[in-house]
């Protein structure tokens, strides 16, 4: 008997917060550090990844009974690579500037461990609606995390948000935030922040539980 299944909404929501790919699972670090030097780049990268993830999960989940185990990874990669190539082409046609800014990192979505990880761990074992809900949650969570990083780095590194100057003409840019170390620094601070939040919440809960039993 299968265990009682969680509602679809929970499958979606877990990716946003409780199992966030960046903040909790720390997956997909390459794009998270490399292309988040502006909000636009981060958002485009997040949405592209989200799209690829949802489409791949849909196909992997619907084909899960037909794909023989020994070639499953190769098949997943073929499916993922197809959607990555499509995304690459569509971005090049519609938003050439963003496409140029993202450069090699769009094709590199193929090797984003988050995507292959969700196929192997979830989509290949779950029915289509759950797989899609899970993929959408993870994808949106990923895009959200990248946008957070991009916002921090763009605001501090360039003094702008989505290209709009925030601090007037005398802003002193933190050059380091646009450089690779800035990615590591911002990610580290975000992880610190979210873990501190989590710890505080756990402490409050534990205190509340003690209060009830006492």
């Amino acid at each position, binding site marked *: *008997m299968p265990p009682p299944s969680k509602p679809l909404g929970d499958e979606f929501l877990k990716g946003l917060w409780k199992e966030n790919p960046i903040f909790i699972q720390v997956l997909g670090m390459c794009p998270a550090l490399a292309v988040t030097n502006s909000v636009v780049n981060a958002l485009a990268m997040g949405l592209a990844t989200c799209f690829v993830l949802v489409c791949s999960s849909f196909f992997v989940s619907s084909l899960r009974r037909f794909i023989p185990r020994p*070639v499953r990874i190769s*098949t997943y990669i*073929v499916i993922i690579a197809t959607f990555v190539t499509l995304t690459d082409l569509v971005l090049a*046609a519609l938003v*050439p500037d963003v496409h*140029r800014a993202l450069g090699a990192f769009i094709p590199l979505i193929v090797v984003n461990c988050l995507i292959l990880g969700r196929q192997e761990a979830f989509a290949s*074992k779950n029915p289509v609606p759950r797989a899609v809900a899970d993929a959408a949650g993870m994808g949106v969570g990923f895009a959200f995390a990248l946008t957070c990083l991009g916002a921090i780095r763009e605001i501090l590194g360039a003094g702008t948000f989505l290209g709009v100057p925030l601090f007037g003409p005398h802003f002193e840019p933190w050059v380091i935030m646009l450089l690779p170390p800035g990615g590591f620094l911002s990610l580290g601070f975000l992880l610190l922040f979210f873990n501190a939040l989590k710890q505080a919440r756990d402490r409050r809960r534990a205190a509340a539980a003690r209060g009830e039993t006492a």
Partner: protein
Amino acid sequence: MSEAVHATPPSAAARPAPPREPSTLRLIATLGLAGFFSGLAIVGVHALTLPRIEQNRRERLERAILTVLPGSRSFAVFVERDGRLAPLDAEQAKQAGEPPIYAGFDAAGKLVGFALPGSEPGYQDAIHGIFGVDPARRLVVGFQVLESRETPGLGDRILAEEWIAPNFRALAIDPGIEAVAAGKKTAAHQVETITGATISSRAVVRMLQKALERWRAGIEAYAAGAERARRGE
């Protein structure tokens, strides 16, 4: 994740037979089918997006040509035929396999200069760029990167106006372009490399040197001809 849990540990006899290994043919067929449909999808989308991508590229090129030749309003495509520059119309230019260069003209139809495209391996991948050359003043008057995958924050500083403006707005092409370390520019024919982006900035200089070497004779002959024609009027 949601595997069924056996209530009792299965005895050796009751253990279900291991699933039969799928046949090799089945494996090949699966991958082949996946590849086939993947190919179909990619070819279809490629055909759909190609015109837009081409158009984007053309527009970028046009903008780049007009940017690297300050003052130009229109441009024409030229290729080299028998050591001379020959104009091409757009249709021919598309079919010609030869590398083209572009002549920019100002509002009055006077030649402003030539835009020379080039490419050179950078730190990550080939850097594609375009240079504006004014044959009358014998200066490089502009430079723009068309395509590069240089490291964001380091190599991609070759795209920055802070580097391009002091180095490529009035760069003498005689006696030959020379790359010097940052802060060491003393003569009009020298280009400062970028600290932290030495490989990328040197690649740009090499690209310029090669483009000049390739086109210098043709440009000079054409400019001299245009000058003669102007005086002949």
